Structure formats: C-alpha cells, structure tokens
C-alpha cells in the first residue's frame, strides 16, 4: 500500500481559485468534528439530493460520505477500507464509494475510534444518516446497511424524475406533489431529531444563497466557451466542492464570485490554461478518476484541453414560477424543473436528454472530441454511456473514447492501457484536424 499511497493522483489546476478548494474540503470534516464537540447535529448525507438547503436551515452539519470516499482515493488510502467491507461480506462489485464508507464505519466501530491516519482526520460518528434515491440505488440502501456499524436514526427520501417521453402536463402535478411530501417528511424527521421547528425564513435564505451560488457557477461555465479555455475540467472537479458541499451558504457564493472574477479576467485577456490549445475536449460523463486526476494534464501534454464536462452538473438555474410562495414547494418545483430541463429538446429530436445536453455543449464550446469515463462499480453513471456515445455519433462526427476504471478502486486499472488508448485518440483528433 505504501507504494500506491505515494503515487501522484492530483492534477495541476488551471486557476488560482481552484487551488483554494483544498482547505474547503478539509473544513468539511473538521467542522463536523467541531460540531460534535459543540453539541451540534452532524448528518451523513448524499450529494445532489436537493435537500441541502433544508439541512442548512436546520443547522445540521453535512458529512458527505461519497466525497469522503473520493478523498480517500485522491490520497491513495482506500484499500484498507475496501478490504474491510469485503471481509464483512460486501461484494467486490458493489459501488466502491459504498464499500469505502462501510469499511470505514466498520473499522471505526471495531477500533472504538477513528482509524489511525484517516484522510483529513476521518469522519466522526454522525447523529443521523440521510439517504436519497436521487442518482442511484446505493444512495439509500447504503445507509440502511451502515446501521450494522452505527445505530443512529436513518431517513431517506425519494427524488423522482419522469422519463423524457412522459407528457409533462399530465404528470407534473403528481411528481411535484410527491417531491414536496418527501421533503416535508424529511423536515419532520429533522424536527424530531433537533427538537426544533424549521424556520421557513431561514430556509428561504438558504435557498437564496444556494441559487445565487449555482447562478454564479453557471455564469463561470458560460465564460468557459472562450478560446483559449480559461478553466479546465480538472478545476471543475475541485470547485464543485463549493456548490455541492456548501450549498446554501455564503461561503459558496463568495467562492464562486472570486472564481468568476478570475475566469472572466482570463477569458477577456485570452489567458489560456495551456500554451497551445490544439483540441478542446468534452468530458462526456462518468465520475472522475479520483485516483488518477493527473491524466488530464497528460492530455494537455498533447495540446488537448478539457473545456467542459458533464458531471456534477444538472443544477443549472431554472425558473420556478413566481406564484410559488412556500419554500418547500419551491424546492419541489426546482427539483422537477432541474430534472426535466432537456426533456422538450429530447422529445423534439434524439429522445434522449443527455444526448441533447451534450450536443449543446459540443456546439457552444467548440468541441473537437469527447471522452467518457466508465466506472466499473458505478452503474448509475456508467450504464448508458456506450449508448449515448453511439446516439451522439448520429448527430455529430467527432472522435470519442471511453476510458474504463473505477472512481476509487484501482485494482484493475492499467495506466499503460489508458496511455495507449489516449495515444490512439490523439491520432484520431489529428487526422480529423488534417482533413478539415
């Protein structure tokens, strides 16, 4: 393990502001430890569940367990947790985030303390676990399984989205009503845990901050259409920490304001990330290879820059109708609108919202090629990539490639194979360039 632990995993960033993310990450875990000492409630939570603002409004300190798994991978300290979960009976093909989380909880229980030298001080025992069905199945099932190691109140909510072919006029009401009821159920659960009523004004405030941060983030991404690119995808994978783990706080707003200013300056002054930007690449989907983020710099060494990406996105601003006066209604509407953003376009053309989104990015960002990352243990973000790739091919003629590994489990990743694949991809880009 020592050898893997020393290996370099991180990527050289394109912006200065992205380099300030590391303390933000550290602070997630540190504030959870502090909160525990001060008697505040800490909750295991799942990112992108659309409930972040509720947690903020109720003073619950979020502990994002998936992020922790990614962090362990970036520190190349995942094997002991993976192996522990497997020894406890969890399959080697189960979501590796879940395996790391369960393995960590299991070790912490066994030792009666946080495992020695855990990345960023480890995760303290939470007061509760809040799962959700947004994105994938493991995200609600994992916390149920974790109750084997920590007996704390556990609650999960559904996050639902209609298929693109559904007639939204016929299903909108019941989707939004259900989403609202699910949020309301969570609020009632949290009120019981905290012995406090949720204050709607505080919820509005958190929502305002949340929306503001996401609006700024969206504006930053719009600046990234500039050639040369002012901010690469590897920065996105860092700066998403503010939007996803600080949702509903001033910290996120301030962070994105600063990043906005920097990216704007770079775009206006044509300051690119790399000296000679030959190709602009779209990261088409899949969780990032946390263990090997330097691969983005490897692409750059061929003049290929990742200009934009389709992961940790989906919360771009939406217009909730003005007549919505209740913050919980607002959250339900917002979740629905986010989920159906590309439905109309899909119905008009490809039938597939992701394909539409990618085609939009390809056009706006002057993309030359697309790269996907398939993660062996993440069904939710991987299944469909091959299909999307082939559908995309019907509407555009770009070199595309799918790299395969896992988001954290490195046991069957091959650097040599990746490099060979990337070499072939570069040739395809060059050939296309030559024929233009």
């Amino acid at each position, binding site marked *: 393990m020592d050898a893997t632990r020393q290996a370099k995993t991180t990527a050289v960033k394109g912006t200065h502001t992205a380099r300030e993310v590391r303390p933000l990450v550290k602070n997630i875990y540190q504030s959870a430890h502090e909160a525990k000492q001060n008697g505040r409630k800490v909750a295991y939570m799942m990112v992108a569940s659309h409930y972040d603002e509720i947690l903020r409004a109720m003073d619950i300190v979020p502990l994002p367990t998936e992020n922790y798994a990614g962090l362990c991978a970036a520190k190349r300290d995942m094997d002991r947790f993976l192996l522990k979960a497997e020894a406890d009976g969890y399959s080697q093909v189960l979501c590796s985030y879940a395996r790391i989380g369960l393995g960590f909880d299991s070790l912490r229980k066994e030792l009666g303390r946080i495992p020695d030298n855990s990345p960023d001080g480890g995760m303290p025992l939470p007061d509760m676990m809040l799962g959700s*069905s947004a994105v994938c*199945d493991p995200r609600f099932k994992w916390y149920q399984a974790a109750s084997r190691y920590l007996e704390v109140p556990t609650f999960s909510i559904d996050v639902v989205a209609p298929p693109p072919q559904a007639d939204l006029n016929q299903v909108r009401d019941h989707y939004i009503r259900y989403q609202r009821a699910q949020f309301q*159920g969570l609020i009632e659960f949290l009120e019981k845990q905290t012995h406090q009523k949720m204050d709607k004004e505080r919820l509005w405030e958190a929502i305002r901050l949340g929306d503001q941060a996401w609006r700024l983030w969206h504006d930053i991404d719009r600046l990234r259409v500039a050639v040369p690119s002012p901010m690469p995808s590897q920065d996105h994978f860092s700066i998403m920490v503010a939007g996803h783990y600080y949702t509903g706080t001033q910290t996120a707003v301030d962070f994105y304001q600063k990043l906005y200013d920097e990216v704007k300056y770079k775009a206006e002054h044509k300051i690119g990330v790399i000296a000679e930007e030959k190709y602009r690449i779209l990261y088409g989907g899949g969780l990032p290879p946390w263990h090997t983020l330097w691969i983005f710099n490897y692409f750059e060494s061929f003049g290929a820059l990742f200009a934009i990406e389709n992961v940790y996105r989906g919360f771009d601003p939406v217009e909730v109708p003005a007549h919505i006066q209740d913050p919980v209604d607002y959250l339900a509407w917002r979740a629905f609108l986010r989920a159906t953003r590309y439905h109309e376009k899909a119905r008009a053309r490809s039938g597939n919202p992701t394909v539409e989104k990618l085609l939009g990015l390809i056009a706006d960002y002057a993309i030359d090629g697309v790269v996907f990352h398939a993660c062996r243990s993440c069904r939710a973000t991987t299944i469909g990539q091959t*299909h999307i790739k082939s559908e995309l091919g019907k509407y555009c003629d770009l070199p595309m490639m799918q790299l395969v590994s896992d988001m954290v489990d490195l046991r069957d990743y091959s650097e040599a194979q990746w490099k060979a694949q990337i070499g072939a991809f570069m040739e395809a880009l060059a050939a296309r360039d030559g024929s233009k």
Partner: protein
Amino acid sequence: MSIVQQIEAIYANRGGRARELRRAGEKIIGYFCCFVPDEIITALGMVPFRIQGSQSEPIDEADALLEPMACPFARSCFNMALKGQYEFLDGFVAPHSCDTIERMYHIWRSNTPSPFNHFINVPHMLGPSSSEFYKNELRYFVTCLEEFSGRKLETEKLRESIRLYNRRGALLRELYELRKQDPPRVSGTEITQVLVAGMGVPAAEHIDLVQAFIEEVKNRPAPAPDGLPRIFLWGNEIDDVAFIQLVEACGAHVVMDDLCTGTRFFWEAVPETDDPLDGLVQKYLGTHCPRSLTPQVGARAEDLENRFSYIRRFAADWKAQGAIFYIVRYCDTCELEGPDLKEYLLKHKLPVLMIEDDYSTATIGQLRTRIQAFLEMIA
C-alpha cells in the same frame, strides 16, 4: 401429454404461446420485474408477458450497446431483444425497479422499440405519499395503454381481473403448501418451471395448468424419508432451473423461496378496495424487494425483525434447515441487503450460504463444491 410435460414444454419455449396468441390477433405487452400490474393489462384485453433472459445463451450482441457491469439478467433480456427474439411484443413496459432496468429502458426503447413503450416510476420509499404517487403513475399508465389499445378501462373488468390473479395466487400458495411435507412431493425445479411457464401465458391458462399440476402432485405416492436437508432460497431473478437443479442434485430439497421469480410476485393477494387501483398499489408496493426501502423501525435488532420476520416465518413454516442466497451479480440493492439478512438468519440459527453469480449456466457448475460443502455442514 401429461401435465408435467405440458408445463415443461411451455417452460422450454417461453415465447411460444405469446406468438400464437399474437397471430390470433391478441396484443402482447412485455414487462420487467414485479412492479407492473398484470391485472391492468389483462383488464384492457391484452396479454401481459413477463420478459425473461436466457441463462444458457451467451450475451454477445448486447455488449456493443450495454456495459458489461450491468446486471447480466437485464443484459441477457436485451440481448434476446436485439436478436429479434422478442419481436412479438406489441408493448414494452419497464418499471423503475433499479438503476439497471431504468437505464436499460432507454437503450432498449431506442434500439428495439415496440409499438407501445412505457416507463412506470416506482417509489423506493414507502409511506402514504409514495402510495399516492405510485397510484398516479398507474393512472398515467392506464391512460397511455387506453390510448394505445383504443379501449377504456372498465372498473368492473379490472375487479374481475384482480379476482383472476388472486385466484391464481391462491392456487400457487396451495401448491407451495405441498412443499411442506418431508420429503416434499414436488421439487424446487418443478416449482420454478410452473412459475416461469406462467409468466408467458394468460392467467386463465396458467390457472388451469396449476390446478391440473396440483392434482397430479397430490396423487403422487408419498416419497420415502431421505433425510436430505431442506433449503430456503433468497435472491432475485432465477428464471432458469439450472441453479435449483444443481442444489437438488447435490442432495437437498429446495422447499421455499423469496425470489422475484418466486413468492415475491404472487404471495400477497390484491385486497378488494373501493377503487381497485388502491388494492393494486397495496399489493405492488408491498412487494418484498431489496430495491424498496422499509423505513427504519427502532434500533438495529428491531429493524431487522421488521424487515425480515416474514422470511424467518417462511423458513420456519417450511422447516428449512439452511438458506442459500443467489444474487445476480451487479445488483447493488441485493448486494447491500444480503449481509443484513445473513446476520438476521444466523441469529435465528439458520445457516446461510451467500452466492453471487453471473446468470449463466456455463459457469454454474463452479458452484457445486461450495454447495456440497454447505450441505455437508448443515447435514
């Protein structure tokens, strides 16, 4: 043909009857898993067909379109569709049973669309708002099916259809009663054949088959005591007898199950409610599947009891001496449920063998030694 031969023939040629019916002008609606009510399809005068894969055919063509880390059951079904083996489906309906099925719905739909394609969202959470939501999803399903079939769903027809499926359920439970004897008069292999055969024929025809089969079984001479262990099976899609045959060949009786292709789809009856959709909601959302989240109750021990006591009762009533889990690989919810259930059953002194497999008869033989060792251990 004896009744056993008839069942074997339908089991072996699963699309056969549906093709015949289609030639006679019927509409066939294919669907996945345990969350699409047959009752609705039947009440609208169409024939529901539960889509199955094939454990004996290699997955070849699907590879180009569906990633290898998707559930091999789902991949196998899609593979068959790509090869034209589901050409007889007028409709294709997928429930949101799991990530794989949800993703696959879109892939299937755009590669081998049927004249009618529909997706039903099934809540993962349980509770009043989930029931209301699922009911609305069923309403929307009805609306779309009505449009497709050109017929209106009559409440009386739906009630009739519910009674029909309830009668089938009652018969299947009667058949399962016969497994309680020691040794049972009917093998686990035969039971699977009866159940899987029924997934491809109209309920009324299945009822006739089950009835005749029960008569036949009752008339069998009581087998001599053999002292072989009695096994309870837990897992997901076992739509092929190969695995059960293997367990039985290793020297055991498979006597009870909790499988998507077993008790899970028929055990509970649809309650008769003022609005028949309410009854359907109760039954279908009550399906014991790891993909549905039972809300936490009390501390760990109480919670496990609340989640799994029905399994303990199954095992006790059918006098099971060991449990084998057969998990189709890559099914995250089953993979997360397995260790909890194992802990629970071990606490209740029921030994457990947890197997994860690839849904392929080609590799099933590799499990023999593990099964034998387990059976020896519990003997």
